[in-house]
Protein backbone atom coordinates (compact mmCIF):
# COMPACT_ATOMS: atom_id res chain seq x y z
CA UNK A 1 0.00 0.00 0.00
CA UNK A 2 2.77 2.39 0.95
CA UNK A 3 4.82 1.79 -2.23
CA UNK A 4 1.66 2.43 -4.20
CA UNK A 5 1.07 5.82 -2.62
CA UNK A 6 4.72 6.78 -3.13
CA UNK A 7 4.32 5.92 -6.80
CA UNK A 8 1.11 7.92 -6.85
CA UNK A 9 2.87 11.01 -5.48
CA UNK A 10 5.87 10.58 -7.81
CA UNK A 11 3.53 10.39 -10.80
CA UNK A 12 1.85 13.68 -9.90
CA UNK A 13 5.14 15.39 -9.06
CA UNK A 14 6.55 14.23 -12.42
CA UNK A 15 3.62 15.57 -14.41
CA UNK A 16 3.56 18.88 -12.54
CA UNK A 17 7.32 19.28 -13.07
CA UNK A 18 6.88 18.76 -16.80
CA UNK A 19 4.01 21.25 -16.96
CA UNK A 20 6.06 23.83 -15.04
CA UNK A 21 8.93 23.48 -17.51
CA UNK A 22 6.49 23.91 -20.38
CA UNK A 23 4.69 26.85 -18.78
CA UNK A 24 7.63 28.72 -17.23
CA UNK A 25 8.83 30.51 -20.41
CA UNK A 26 5.29 31.70 -21.10
CA UNK A 27 4.93 33.03 -17.56
CA UNK A 28 8.18 34.96 -18.08
CA UNK A 29 6.75 36.47 -21.26
CA UNK A 30 3.65 37.68 -19.40
CA UNK A 31 5.78 39.12 -16.59
CA UNK A 32 8.05 40.98 -18.99
CA UNK A 33 5.13 42.50 -20.84
CA UNK A 34 3.98 44.07 -17.57
CA UNK A 35 7.39 45.31 -16.40
CA UNK A 36 9.38 48.42 -17.21
CA UNK A 37 12.66 47.99 -19.06
CA UNK A 38 14.74 48.69 -15.93
CA UNK A 39 12.78 46.21 -13.84
CA UNK A 40 13.25 43.51 -16.51
CA UNK A 41 17.02 43.78 -16.08
CA UNK A 42 17.06 44.29 -12.32
CA UNK A 43 14.98 41.18 -11.61
CA UNK A 44 14.86 38.97 -14.71
CA UNK A 45 12.63 36.38 -13.05
CA UNK A 46 10.64 38.27 -10.42
CA UNK A 47 6.93 38.94 -10.38
CA UNK A 48 6.23 42.48 -11.69
CA UNK A 49 6.21 44.96 -8.81
CA UNK A 50 4.41 47.89 -10.36
CA UNK A 51 2.31 46.63 -13.22
CA UNK A 52 2.67 48.89 -16.22
CA UNK A 53 0.57 48.93 -19.38
CA UNK A 54 2.94 51.30 -21.15
CA UNK A 55 4.50 48.48 -23.19
CA UNK A 56 1.14 47.64 -24.72
CA UNK A 57 0.36 51.30 -25.32
CA UNK A 58 3.71 51.77 -27.01
CA UNK A 59 3.25 48.73 -29.26
CA UNK A 60 -0.23 49.67 -30.40
CA UNK A 61 0.25 53.42 -30.79
CA UNK A 62 3.90 53.89 -31.80
CA UNK A 63 4.66 50.86 -33.97
CA UNK A 64 3.19 49.37 -37.13
CA UNK A 65 1.48 46.67 -35.06
CA UNK A 66 -2.04 47.44 -36.28
CA UNK A 67 -1.02 47.41 -39.95
CA UNK A 68 0.75 44.07 -39.54
CA UNK A 69 -2.18 42.75 -37.53
CA UNK A 70 -4.51 43.63 -40.41
CA UNK A 71 -2.21 41.73 -42.82
CA UNK A 72 -2.08 38.68 -40.57
CA UNK A 73 -5.86 38.63 -40.11
CA UNK A 74 -6.45 38.93 -43.85
CA UNK A 75 -3.94 36.22 -44.73
CA UNK A 76 -5.02 33.80 -42.00
CA UNK A 77 -8.75 34.05 -42.62
CA UNK A 78 -8.38 33.84 -46.40
CA UNK A 79 -6.16 30.79 -45.93
CA UNK A 80 -8.82 29.08 -43.81
CA UNK A 81 -11.52 29.85 -46.37
CA UNK A 82 -9.44 28.75 -49.35
CA UNK A 83 -8.17 25.66 -47.51
CA UNK A 84 -11.73 24.45 -46.83
CA UNK A 85 -12.86 25.18 -50.39
CA UNK A 86 -9.92 23.29 -51.87
CA UNK A 87 -9.48 20.41 -49.43
CA UNK A 88 -13.10 19.36 -48.81
CA UNK A 89 -13.77 18.30 -52.44
CA UNK A 90 -10.33 16.69 -52.71
CA UNK A 91 -10.86 14.71 -49.51
CA UNK A 92 -14.27 13.70 -50.85
CA UNK A 93 -12.79 12.48 -54.14
CA UNK A 94 -10.13 10.44 -52.31
CA UNK A 95 -12.79 8.94 -50.07
CA UNK A 96 -15.46 8.14 -52.68
CA UNK A 97 -13.81 7.50 -56.05
CA UNK A 98 -11.22 5.11 -57.32
CA UNK A 99 -9.24 6.84 -60.04
CA UNK A 100 -5.93 6.45 -61.77
CA UNK A 101 -3.23 8.52 -60.13
CA UNK A 102 -4.99 8.36 -56.77
CA UNK A 103 -1.97 6.86 -55.02
CA UNK A 104 0.42 9.14 -56.86
CA UNK A 105 -1.63 12.16 -55.80
CA UNK A 106 -1.64 11.01 -52.16
CA UNK A 107 2.09 10.36 -52.18
CA UNK A 108 2.88 13.71 -53.74
CA UNK A 109 0.63 15.41 -51.22
CA UNK A 110 2.44 13.79 -48.30
CA UNK A 111 5.86 14.36 -49.84
CA UNK A 112 5.31 18.14 -50.12
CA UNK A 113 5.77 18.32 -46.34
CA UNK A 114 9.45 17.58 -46.79
CA UNK A 115 10.23 20.00 -49.60
CA UNK A 116 12.94 22.42 -48.43
CA UNK A 117 11.64 25.97 -48.01
CA UNK A 118 14.59 27.42 -49.87
CA UNK A 119 13.93 25.44 -53.06
CA UNK A 120 10.23 26.28 -52.96
CA UNK A 121 10.87 29.94 -52.36
CA UNK A 122 13.41 30.21 -55.17
CA UNK A 123 10.97 28.50 -57.54
CA UNK A 124 7.98 30.47 -56.29
CA UNK A 125 9.80 33.74 -56.82
CA UNK A 126 9.64 33.15 -60.56
CA UNK A 127 5.95 32.19 -60.45
CA UNK A 128 4.98 35.07 -58.18
CA UNK A 129 6.97 37.59 -60.22
CA UNK A 130 5.23 36.45 -63.42
CA UNK A 131 1.82 36.96 -61.81
CA UNK A 132 2.84 40.15 -60.01
CA UNK A 133 2.29 38.58 -56.59
CA UNK A 134 5.63 39.39 -54.96
CA UNK A 135 4.99 41.60 -51.95
CA UNK A 136 1.26 40.86 -52.21
CA UNK A 137 -0.90 39.07 -49.69
CA UNK A 138 -2.62 36.69 -52.21
CA UNK A 139 0.71 35.04 -52.98
CA UNK A 140 1.20 34.25 -49.31
CA UNK A 141 -2.39 33.04 -48.96
CA UNK A 142 -1.98 30.50 -51.77
CA UNK A 143 1.29 29.26 -50.26
CA UNK A 144 -0.19 28.84 -46.80
CA UNK A 145 -3.14 27.00 -48.33
CA UNK A 146 -0.77 24.57 -50.02
CA UNK A 147 1.03 23.97 -46.70
CA UNK A 148 -2.25 23.11 -45.00
CA UNK A 149 -3.36 20.73 -47.77
CA UNK A 150 -1.58 17.47 -46.84
CA UNK A 151 -2.95 17.43 -43.31
CA UNK A 152 -6.38 18.84 -44.20
CA UNK A 153 -7.13 16.57 -47.16
CA UNK A 154 -5.97 13.53 -45.22
CA UNK A 155 -8.05 14.41 -42.20
CA UNK A 156 -11.22 15.11 -44.19
CA UNK A 157 -10.83 11.90 -46.20
CA UNK A 158 -10.78 10.06 -42.87
CA UNK A 159 -13.98 11.80 -41.77
CA UNK A 160 -15.77 11.18 -45.07
CA UNK A 161 -14.79 7.49 -44.99
CA UNK A 162 -16.85 7.11 -41.84
CA UNK A 163 -20.04 8.59 -43.36
CA UNK A 164 -22.15 5.81 -44.91
CA UNK A 165 -22.52 6.08 -48.69
CA UNK A 166 -26.19 5.08 -48.28
CA UNK A 167 -26.98 8.49 -46.81
CA UNK A 168 -25.74 10.14 -49.95
CA UNK A 169 -27.45 7.64 -52.23
CA UNK A 170 -30.78 8.56 -50.71
CA UNK A 171 -30.13 12.21 -51.50
CA UNK A 172 -28.91 11.36 -55.01
CA UNK A 173 -32.13 9.47 -55.75
CA UNK A 174 -33.96 12.66 -54.81
CA UNK A 175 -32.05 14.34 -57.64
CA UNK A 176 -29.06 15.79 -55.82
CA UNK A 177 -25.83 16.09 -57.81
CA UNK A 178 -22.56 14.79 -56.33
CA UNK A 179 -21.53 18.31 -55.38
CA UNK A 180 -24.86 19.03 -53.73
CA UNK A 181 -24.81 15.80 -51.79
CA UNK A 182 -21.32 16.74 -50.58
CA UNK A 183 -22.53 20.15 -49.44
CA UNK A 184 -25.95 19.10 -48.11
CA UNK A 185 -25.28 15.66 -46.67
CA UNK A 186 -21.58 15.00 -46.11
CA UNK A 187 -20.26 18.36 -44.91
CA UNK A 188 -22.90 18.94 -42.21
CA UNK A 189 -21.95 15.54 -40.78
CA UNK A 190 -18.25 16.44 -40.80
CA UNK A 191 -18.34 19.64 -38.78
CA UNK A 192 -15.69 18.44 -36.27
CA UNK A 193 -13.39 17.64 -39.20
CA UNK A 194 -13.98 21.06 -40.74
CA UNK A 195 -13.28 22.72 -37.38
CA UNK A 196 -10.01 20.78 -37.13
CA UNK A 197 -9.02 21.88 -40.64
CA UNK A 198 -9.96 25.47 -39.82
CA UNK A 199 -8.00 25.54 -36.56
CA UNK A 200 -4.98 23.90 -38.16
CA UNK A 201 -4.93 26.24 -41.18
CA UNK A 202 -5.40 29.33 -39.05
CA UNK A 203 -2.58 28.41 -36.66
CA UNK A 204 -0.30 27.49 -39.55
CA UNK A 205 -0.91 30.72 -41.43
CA UNK A 206 -0.82 32.98 -38.37
CA UNK A 207 2.49 31.50 -37.17
CA UNK A 208 4.29 31.01 -40.50
CA UNK A 209 7.52 32.99 -40.69
CA UNK A 210 9.96 31.98 -43.44
CA UNK A 211 7.82 32.57 -46.52
CA UNK A 212 6.27 35.69 -45.04
CA UNK A 213 9.79 37.00 -44.45
CA UNK A 214 11.06 36.29 -47.93
CA UNK A 215 8.06 37.08 -50.13
CA UNK A 216 7.03 40.35 -48.47
CA UNK A 217 9.38 43.22 -49.18
CA UNK A 218 8.27 46.09 -46.98
CA UNK A 219 6.84 46.81 -43.59
CA UNK A 220 3.36 47.67 -44.90
CA UNK A 221 3.01 44.07 -46.10
CA UNK A 222 4.68 42.14 -43.29
CA UNK A 223 2.65 39.76 -41.16
CA UNK A 224 2.98 39.66 -37.38
CA UNK A 225 5.75 37.03 -37.04
CA UNK A 226 8.01 39.12 -39.30
CA UNK A 227 7.04 42.25 -37.37
CA UNK A 228 8.13 40.50 -34.16
CA UNK A 229 11.42 39.23 -35.56
CA UNK A 230 12.27 42.78 -36.66
CA UNK A 231 12.22 43.86 -33.01
CA UNK A 232 15.68 42.37 -32.78
CA UNK A 233 17.66 45.30 -34.11
CA UNK A 234 21.07 45.27 -35.72
CA UNK A 235 23.70 44.23 -33.20
CA UNK A 236 21.05 42.26 -31.32
CA UNK A 237 19.72 45.20 -29.30
CA UNK A 238 16.22 44.45 -28.08
CA UNK A 239 13.64 46.35 -26.06
CA UNK A 240 12.26 43.39 -24.15
CA UNK A 241 9.26 45.11 -22.56
CA UNK A 242 7.52 46.23 -25.75
CA UNK A 243 8.64 43.08 -27.55
CA UNK A 244 7.06 40.88 -24.87
CA UNK A 245 3.86 42.91 -24.99
CA UNK A 246 3.75 42.55 -28.78
CA UNK A 247 4.52 38.82 -28.62
CA UNK A 248 1.72 38.40 -26.11
CA UNK A 249 -0.73 40.31 -28.31
CA UNK A 250 0.24 38.09 -31.26
CA UNK A 251 -0.12 34.90 -29.21
CA UNK A 252 -3.39 35.55 -27.37
CA UNK A 253 -5.76 35.16 -30.37
CA UNK A 254 -4.22 31.86 -31.49
CA UNK A 255 -4.03 30.70 -27.94
CA UNK A 256 -7.75 31.24 -27.38
CA UNK A 257 -8.59 29.66 -30.71
CA UNK A 258 -6.37 26.72 -29.88
CA UNK A 259 -8.12 26.19 -26.55
CA UNK A 260 -11.49 26.16 -28.34
CA UNK A 261 -10.39 24.00 -31.26
CA UNK A 262 -7.86 21.68 -29.64
CA UNK A 263 -10.37 18.87 -29.09
CA UNK A 264 -11.09 18.64 -32.82
CA UNK A 265 -7.48 19.26 -33.80
CA UNK A 266 -6.14 16.54 -31.52
CA UNK A 267 -8.65 13.91 -32.60
CA UNK A 268 -8.05 14.86 -36.22
CA UNK A 269 -4.29 14.74 -35.90
CA UNK A 270 -4.14 11.47 -34.06
CA UNK A 271 -7.02 9.73 -35.85
CA UNK A 272 -5.08 8.86 -38.99
CA UNK A 273 -1.98 7.73 -37.17
CA UNK A 274 -3.61 5.23 -34.85
CA UNK A 275 -5.50 2.89 -37.18
Amino acid at each position, binding site marked *: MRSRSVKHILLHVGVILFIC*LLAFPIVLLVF*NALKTETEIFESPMGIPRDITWSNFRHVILDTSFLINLRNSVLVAFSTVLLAVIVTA*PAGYALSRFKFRGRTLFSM*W*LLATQAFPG*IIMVLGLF*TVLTVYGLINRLPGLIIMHTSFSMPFSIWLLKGYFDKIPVELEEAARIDGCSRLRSLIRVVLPLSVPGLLAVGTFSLLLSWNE*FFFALVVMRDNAHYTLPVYLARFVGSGGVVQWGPLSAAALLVSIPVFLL*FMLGQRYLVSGLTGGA*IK
Partner: protein
Amino acid sequence: MSAKPATQTRRWHQERQALPFILPALLVLLGVSLYPLIQGVSRVVYAYRALTQQTVFVGWENFSLLFQDPTFIRALGNSLVWTLTSVGTMFLLSYSLATMLNARALRFRRLFRSATLIPWALPGVVVSLIWRYIFLSGGPLNALLASLGVAHPPDWLTNPQLALWTCIIANIWMGIPFVTIMLLAGLQSVENQIIEAAAIDGANYLQTQLRVVMPSIKKVIMIVLTLEAIWTFNSFDIVFVLTKGGPGSASITLPLYAYQNAFMYYQAGYGAAIGIVILLILLSAVVLYIREVLR
Protein backbone atom coordinates in the same frame (compact mmCIF):
# COMPACT_ATOMS: atom_id res chain seq x y z
CA MET B 1 -13.63 -11.30 -72.01
CA SER B 2 -16.64 -9.06 -72.28
CA ALA B 3 -16.29 -7.90 -68.68
CA LYS B 4 -13.09 -5.97 -69.37
CA PRO B 5 -14.47 -3.09 -71.46
CA ALA B 6 -17.30 -2.73 -68.94
CA THR B 7 -14.96 -2.21 -65.98
CA GLN B 8 -12.86 0.09 -68.08
CA THR B 9 -15.77 2.37 -68.86
CA ARG B 10 -16.74 2.30 -65.23
CA ARG B 11 -13.17 3.26 -64.29
CA TRP B 12 -13.23 6.10 -66.78
CA HIS B 13 -16.57 7.14 -65.39
CA GLN B 14 -15.07 7.34 -61.90
CA GLU B 15 -12.16 9.40 -63.14
CA ARG B 16 -14.45 11.85 -64.87
CA GLN B 17 -16.47 12.15 -61.69
CA ALA B 18 -13.42 12.56 -59.49
CA LEU B 19 -11.66 15.16 -61.61
CA PRO B 20 -13.81 18.22 -60.79
CA PHE B 21 -13.48 17.48 -57.07
CA ILE B 22 -9.75 17.00 -57.17
CA LEU B 23 -9.06 19.80 -59.65
CA PRO B 24 -8.71 22.81 -57.26
CA ALA B 25 -6.28 20.90 -55.06
CA LEU B 26 -4.45 19.59 -58.11
CA LEU B 27 -4.03 23.11 -59.49
CA VAL B 28 -2.66 24.40 -56.19
CA LEU B 29 -0.29 21.42 -56.01
CA LEU B 30 0.93 21.91 -59.57
CA GLY B 31 1.29 25.67 -59.24
CA VAL B 32 2.67 26.01 -55.74
CA SER B 33 4.53 22.74 -55.31
CA LEU B 34 5.46 20.85 -58.51
CA TYR B 35 6.34 23.85 -60.67
CA PRO B 36 8.32 25.72 -57.97
CA LEU B 37 10.14 22.49 -57.10
CA ILE B 38 11.32 22.02 -60.69
CA GLN B 39 12.00 25.73 -61.14
CA GLY B 40 13.85 25.94 -57.82
CA VAL B 41 15.97 22.88 -58.50
CA SER B 42 16.83 24.17 -61.99
CA ARG B 43 18.32 27.33 -60.46
CA VAL B 44 21.31 25.27 -59.38
CA VAL B 45 23.00 25.38 -62.80
CA TYR B 46 23.21 29.20 -62.75
CA ALA B 47 25.42 31.57 -60.80
CA TYR B 48 25.46 35.35 -60.38
CA ARG B 49 28.77 36.97 -61.31
CA ALA B 50 29.22 40.17 -59.33
CA LEU B 51 31.95 41.40 -61.67
CA THR B 52 29.85 41.41 -64.81
CA GLN B 53 26.57 41.64 -62.86
CA GLN B 54 25.18 38.79 -64.92
CA THR B 55 23.64 35.42 -64.18
CA VAL B 56 25.43 32.79 -66.23
CA PHE B 57 25.10 29.06 -66.84
CA VAL B 58 27.71 27.20 -64.80
CA GLY B 59 26.64 23.55 -64.97
CA TRP B 60 27.76 21.54 -61.95
CA GLU B 61 29.93 24.30 -60.47
CA ASN B 62 27.62 25.01 -57.51
CA PHE B 63 27.75 21.38 -56.45
CA SER B 64 31.52 21.06 -56.76
CA LEU B 65 31.93 24.25 -54.71
CA LEU B 66 29.83 22.79 -51.89
CA PHE B 67 32.36 20.28 -50.70
CA GLN B 68 35.23 22.76 -50.67
CA ASP B 69 33.19 25.15 -48.53
CA PRO B 70 33.96 24.74 -44.80
CA THR B 71 30.79 26.63 -43.83
CA PHE B 72 28.69 24.15 -45.79
CA ILE B 73 30.42 21.20 -44.12
CA ARG B 74 29.84 22.88 -40.78
CA ALA B 75 26.16 23.50 -41.58
CA LEU B 76 25.73 19.89 -42.71
CA GLY B 77 27.23 18.55 -39.48
CA ASN B 78 25.24 21.00 -37.35
CA SER B 79 22.01 20.09 -39.13
CA LEU B 80 22.52 16.40 -38.42
CA VAL B 81 23.35 17.05 -34.75
CA TRP B 82 20.45 19.50 -34.47
CA THR B 83 17.95 17.03 -35.93
CA LEU B 84 19.11 13.80 -34.28
CA THR B 85 19.56 15.19 -30.77
CA SER B 86 16.35 17.26 -30.96
CA VAL B 87 14.17 14.40 -32.15
CA GLY B 88 15.84 11.82 -29.91
CA THR B 89 15.41 13.92 -26.77
CA MET B 90 11.88 14.95 -27.75
CA PHE B 91 10.97 11.29 -28.08
CA LEU B 92 12.43 10.28 -24.71
CA LEU B 93 10.86 13.18 -22.81
CA SER B 94 7.53 12.99 -24.63
CA TYR B 95 7.27 9.24 -24.20
CA SER B 96 7.76 9.49 -20.45
CA LEU B 97 5.31 12.40 -20.22
CA ALA B 98 2.77 10.51 -22.34
CA THR B 99 2.96 7.37 -20.19
CA MET B 100 2.43 9.54 -17.09
CA LEU B 101 -0.53 11.33 -18.68
CA ASN B 102 -1.96 7.94 -19.60
CA ALA B 103 -1.66 6.53 -16.07
CA ARG B 104 -5.05 5.65 -14.64
CA ALA B 105 -4.05 6.89 -11.21
CA LEU B 106 -3.49 10.43 -12.49
CA ARG B 107 -5.93 13.06 -11.22
CA PHE B 108 -7.01 16.11 -13.28
CA ARG B 109 -6.01 14.25 -16.43
CA ARG B 110 -7.90 16.50 -18.86
CA LEU B 111 -6.43 19.63 -17.30
CA PHE B 112 -2.87 18.30 -17.44
CA ARG B 113 -3.29 17.18 -21.03
CA SER B 114 -4.50 20.62 -22.13
CA ALA B 115 -1.65 22.29 -20.24
CA THR B 116 0.87 20.09 -22.07
CA LEU B 117 -0.32 21.48 -25.39
CA ILE B 118 0.24 25.15 -24.56
CA PRO B 119 3.66 25.73 -26.23
CA TRP B 120 2.28 24.28 -29.44
CA ALA B 121 -0.13 27.17 -29.98
CA LEU B 122 2.63 29.78 -29.85
CA PRO B 123 4.16 31.12 -33.07
CA GLY B 124 7.70 29.81 -33.63
CA VAL B 125 9.02 33.37 -33.63
CA VAL B 126 7.50 34.05 -30.21
CA VAL B 127 8.99 30.84 -28.82
CA SER B 128 12.39 31.78 -30.23
CA LEU B 129 12.20 35.29 -28.77
CA ILE B 130 11.27 33.99 -25.31
CA TRP B 131 14.25 31.62 -25.33
CA ARG B 132 16.52 34.35 -26.60
CA TYR B 133 15.56 36.31 -23.52
CA ILE B 134 15.98 33.32 -21.17
CA PHE B 135 19.50 32.65 -22.49
CA LEU B 136 20.63 36.29 -22.41
CA SER B 137 23.95 36.71 -20.61
CA GLY B 138 22.23 38.80 -17.92
CA GLY B 139 18.97 36.93 -18.31
CA PRO B 140 16.80 34.71 -16.11
CA LEU B 141 18.72 31.46 -16.59
CA ASN B 142 22.04 32.97 -15.60
CA ALA B 143 20.40 34.80 -12.70
CA LEU B 144 19.14 31.43 -11.53
CA LEU B 145 22.57 29.83 -11.98
CA ALA B 146 24.21 32.70 -10.12
CA SER B 147 21.80 32.32 -7.22
CA LEU B 148 22.70 28.61 -7.15
CA GLY B 149 26.33 29.61 -6.72
CA VAL B 150 27.68 29.26 -10.25
CA ALA B 151 30.49 31.82 -10.34
CA HIS B 152 30.71 32.41 -14.09
CA PRO B 153 27.53 31.36 -15.87
CA PRO B 154 28.20 30.95 -19.61
CA ASP B 155 27.16 33.21 -22.47
CA TRP B 156 24.71 30.78 -23.99
CA LEU B 157 24.10 32.61 -27.26
CA THR B 158 27.60 33.87 -28.03
CA ASN B 159 29.72 30.94 -26.89
CA PRO B 160 30.62 28.92 -30.03
CA GLN B 161 30.57 25.68 -28.05
CA LEU B 162 27.07 26.30 -26.68
CA ALA B 163 25.12 28.27 -29.32
CA LEU B 164 23.82 25.24 -31.23
CA TRP B 165 22.82 23.43 -28.02
CA THR B 166 20.97 26.51 -26.86
CA CYS B 167 18.93 26.40 -30.06
CA ILE B 168 18.35 22.66 -29.61
CA ILE B 169 16.90 23.20 -26.13
CA ALA B 170 14.41 25.74 -27.48
CA ASN B 171 13.48 23.38 -30.31
CA ILE B 172 12.89 20.46 -27.95
CA TRP B 173 10.67 22.62 -25.77
CA MET B 174 8.59 23.58 -28.80
CA GLY B 175 8.32 20.02 -30.14
CA ILE B 176 7.29 18.20 -26.97
CA PRO B 177 3.53 18.97 -27.09
CA PHE B 178 2.96 17.53 -30.57
CA VAL B 179 5.04 14.40 -29.96
CA THR B 180 3.43 13.84 -26.55
CA ILE B 181 -0.12 14.15 -27.81
CA MET B 182 0.52 11.77 -30.71
CA LEU B 183 2.20 9.19 -28.47
CA LEU B 184 -0.54 9.59 -25.86
CA ALA B 185 -3.19 8.82 -28.46
CA GLY B 186 -1.20 5.74 -29.40
CA LEU B 187 -0.85 4.62 -25.77
CA GLN B 188 -4.58 5.05 -25.21
CA SER B 189 -5.24 2.58 -28.01
CA VAL B 190 -3.13 -0.14 -26.35
CA GLU B 191 -5.29 -2.78 -24.69
CA ASN B 192 -4.66 -3.10 -20.98
CA GLN B 193 -4.85 -6.87 -21.26
CA ILE B 194 -1.60 -7.24 -23.15
CA ILE B 195 0.22 -5.13 -20.57
CA GLU B 196 -1.24 -7.24 -17.77
CA ALA B 197 -0.30 -10.39 -19.67
CA ALA B 198 3.29 -9.14 -19.91
CA ALA B 199 3.28 -8.45 -16.16
CA ILE B 200 2.06 -11.99 -15.47
CA ASP B 201 4.90 -13.32 -17.62
CA GLY B 202 7.26 -11.48 -15.29
CA ALA B 203 8.32 -8.61 -17.56
CA ASN B 204 9.60 -5.51 -15.76
CA TYR B 205 8.55 -1.97 -16.61
CA LEU B 206 11.24 -1.32 -19.23
CA GLN B 207 10.76 -4.70 -20.88
CA THR B 208 7.02 -4.13 -21.07
CA GLN B 209 7.49 -0.75 -22.73
CA LEU B 210 10.16 -1.91 -25.18
CA ARG B 211 8.80 -5.33 -26.10
CA VAL B 212 5.04 -4.93 -25.76
CA VAL B 213 3.84 -1.31 -25.79
CA MET B 214 6.22 0.25 -28.33
CA PRO B 215 5.79 -2.48 -30.97
CA SER B 216 2.01 -2.17 -30.75
CA ILE B 217 2.14 1.60 -31.38
CA LYS B 218 4.90 1.33 -33.98
CA LYS B 219 2.87 3.18 -36.60
CA VAL B 220 2.35 6.31 -34.45
CA ILE B 221 5.97 6.28 -33.37
CA MET B 222 7.20 6.04 -36.95
CA ILE B 223 4.90 8.80 -38.19
CA VAL B 224 5.70 11.16 -35.36
CA LEU B 225 9.47 10.57 -35.57
CA THR B 226 9.73 10.93 -39.35
CA LEU B 227 7.47 14.00 -39.39
CA GLU B 228 9.30 15.66 -36.52
CA ALA B 229 12.68 14.85 -38.11
CA ILE B 230 11.54 16.44 -41.39
CA TRP B 231 10.22 19.56 -39.64
CA THR B 232 13.32 19.92 -37.48
CA PHE B 233 15.72 19.46 -40.38
CA ASN B 234 13.82 22.11 -42.37
CA SER B 235 13.34 24.40 -39.37
CA PHE B 236 14.39 28.00 -39.79
CA ASP B 237 12.73 30.23 -37.16
CA ILE B 238 14.60 29.20 -34.02
CA VAL B 239 18.18 29.44 -35.26
CA PHE B 240 17.37 32.59 -37.25
CA VAL B 241 15.98 34.41 -34.22
CA LEU B 242 18.29 33.01 -31.53
CA THR B 243 21.75 33.18 -33.07
CA LYS B 244 21.45 33.89 -36.82
CA GLY B 245 23.82 30.90 -37.12
CA GLY B 246 26.49 32.63 -35.06
CA PRO B 247 28.83 33.34 -33.49
CA GLY B 248 30.62 33.06 -36.84
CA SER B 249 29.10 29.91 -38.24
CA ALA B 250 29.06 27.99 -34.96
CA SER B 251 25.33 27.27 -34.97
CA ILE B 252 24.56 27.53 -38.67
CA THR B 253 22.20 24.94 -40.17
CA LEU B 254 21.58 24.07 -43.81
CA PRO B 255 18.26 25.95 -44.24
CA LEU B 256 19.76 29.10 -42.71
CA TYR B 257 22.93 28.88 -44.81
CA ALA B 258 20.85 28.36 -47.95
CA TYR B 259 18.76 31.42 -47.03
CA GLN B 260 21.87 33.56 -46.46
CA ASN B 261 23.33 32.58 -49.81
CA ALA B 262 20.14 33.14 -51.75
CA PHE B 263 18.93 36.34 -50.11
CA MET B 264 21.95 38.04 -48.58
CA TYR B 265 24.84 37.08 -50.87
CA TYR B 266 22.76 36.97 -54.08
CA GLN B 267 23.89 33.40 -54.78
CA ALA B 268 20.53 31.80 -55.59
CA GLY B 269 22.22 28.95 -57.47
CA TYR B 270 24.39 28.06 -54.51
CA GLY B 271 21.36 28.31 -52.22
CA ALA B 272 19.53 25.92 -54.55
CA ALA B 273 22.45 23.48 -54.38
CA ILE B 274 22.17 23.45 -50.57
CA GLY B 275 18.41 23.02 -50.93
CA ILE B 276 18.93 19.98 -53.15
CA VAL B 277 21.24 18.45 -50.53
CA ILE B 278 18.48 18.98 -47.94
CA LEU B 279 15.96 17.36 -50.27
CA LEU B 280 18.19 14.33 -50.87
CA ILE B 281 18.81 13.86 -47.14
CA LEU B 282 15.10 14.11 -46.37
CA LEU B 283 14.13 11.66 -49.10
CA SER B 284 14.65 8.60 -46.90
CA ALA B 285 12.57 10.11 -44.09
CA VAL B 286 9.80 10.96 -46.57
CA VAL B 287 9.71 7.44 -47.97
CA LEU B 288 9.40 5.99 -44.45
CA TYR B 289 6.71 8.53 -43.58
CA ILE B 290 4.61 7.93 -46.70
CA ARG B 291 4.85 4.16 -46.29
CA GLU B 292 3.49 4.36 -42.75
CA VAL B 293 0.68 6.78 -43.54
CA LEU B 294 -0.54 4.91 -46.62
CA ARG B 295 -0.38 1.54 -44.88
